[in-house]
């Protein structure tokens, strides 16, 4: 489903964010992407979305080499991936409802379908009461949940979440994890970059660790990582 073949990414300012990364994620898997701050997790996600281009290597999504794809086709690739962005990326001039509905409108969904599904996902992330608020009228965690709602509303075959619980209290975070788990159970491939040690440790899923741009660990049913932390 998702395959990275010896991918390198060097940014303009000579920062080598990814170094020879090889990764293969199968359809229906749930994968945690861990690593310290600045390791390269978001960069990997940006490459999958074609927000950035790899310096070298190939990226295959759904049997398609997306590094070779025409510009015109990019939107259609993105529609197959629901993304929770680390910085949320909500449209400032649209309400919560409209932000979520927007993802459905661009694929030409039927208005009836939109009116049915948007309230549904908003209640899944517990935001029904905020449907008509604008993003800058929301708390940090509420914004994050709008981003989650938008990512899942089209039931995409792939869901990528970049630190989707960073601004959520543990209880809400667990509710979100349940939602992602359910979606994964219905066949969606999930890739989640996270720092939530508790969540990774309890979920017992595949864990991929990046350290300074290199993929250094890829474990089935892994944990967050070796416990160096002392109080």
């Amino acid at each position, binding site marked *: 489903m998702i395959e990275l073949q010896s991918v390198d990414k060097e940014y303009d300012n000579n920062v080598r964010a990814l170094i020879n990364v090889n990764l293969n994620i199968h359809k229906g898997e749930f994968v945690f992407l861990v690593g310290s701050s600045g390791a390269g997790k978001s960069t990997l996600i940006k490459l999958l*979305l074609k*927000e950035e281009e790899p310096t070298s290597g190939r990226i295959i999504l759904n049997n398609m080499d997306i590094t070779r794809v025409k*510009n015109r086709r*990019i*939107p*259609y690739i*993105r*529609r197959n991936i629901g*993304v929770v*962005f680390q910085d949320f*990326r*909500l*449209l*400032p*001039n649209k309400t919560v409802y409209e932000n979520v509905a*927007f*993802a459905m*409108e*661009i*694929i*030409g*969904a*039927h*208005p009836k379908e939109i009116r049915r599904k948007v309230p549904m996902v908003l209640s899944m992330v517990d935001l029904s009461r905020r449907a008509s608020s604008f993003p800058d009228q929301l708390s940090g965690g509420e914004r994050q949940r709008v981003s989650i709602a*938008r990512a899942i509303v089209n039931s995409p075959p792939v869901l990528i979440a970049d630190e989707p619980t960073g601004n959520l209290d543990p209880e809400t975070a667990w509710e979100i994890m349940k939602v992602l788990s359910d979606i994964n159970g219905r066949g969606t491939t999930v890739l989640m970059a996270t720092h939530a040690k508790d969540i990774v440790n309890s979920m017992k899923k595949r864990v991929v660790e990046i350290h300074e741009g290199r993929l250094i660990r890829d474990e089935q049913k892994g944990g967050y990582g070796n416990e160096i932390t002392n109080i």
Partner: protein
Amino acid sequence: MAMRLRIYRNIIKQGFQGMWRNRSMGLASVSSISAVLLILGVVLILILTINNIVLETKTKFDEIQIYLEDDMTNDDLDRIEDSIREMEGVLSLVFISKEQGLEIMKEGWEEEAYLLEGLEENPLQDSYIIQLVDIKYAEGIVSNLRFMEGIEDVKYYQDIIDKLMLVANYIRFGGIFIIGALMLVSIFIISNTIKVTVTARRREINIMKYVGATNGYIRGPFIIEGILFGLIGAAISIVVIKFGYEYFFKSVNDRLYLLFTVYLVAPSLLIKDIAIIFTAIGVGIGGVGSLVSLKRFLNV
């Protein structure tokens, strides 16, 4: 098909919504567009008015005078009159006998008129004054007249007319040049304004792209917004110019006639043309400006 229609409906809805929600930026765009078109309108009217004055003044000299040989019979006169009337471009024909001619001369000479009292006999000839439909017929008619029997001399104000024609041409070319340049500059300013407002929303555009919107889908609402801004801007400037010019017309027209025996272009005629031009510019630049400005932000 139904899906396409839905998408178009959404685009239009979002265009209107976007205009409303970005109204503070929009206000700046709209008022700049109106202001630029206003300038364009004032200069346009200025140049048209000057052009009009020159052209009208020219028609004052738009006549040919022919002097007849002495001792013509009424038949001869009828014959000449008929054949002149048949010529292309002749508007009217007035006969002036040599007695009338002397009277006119005396009036024209005012204080020197007493000089003419000393004349023993009337040295003038009978003549016709030919009014032309347009100055362009002058040369043809003059050369025809020269070969006609019974005509001793043909006179028309070639010098003055040529000079005025030249001035009119300069004004026409200069005017077209200035208006053309001004239009370019206006278009530039308007598209600049649109560009800045689009740039201010580049983040929004990027976000749309990242969630999978096609370029067309993103462009749509922006273009509609641009067109609406252009339309409103044009409408405002048209209304201001309409009332402004009507007021100007009322207060200046009569005085202008006294000075140059020329009238201003009637507001109704002018405003219609200006309205068409401005709407075209506003809508065109609003739409195309948005399109072009968007281009560099869509490649993400």
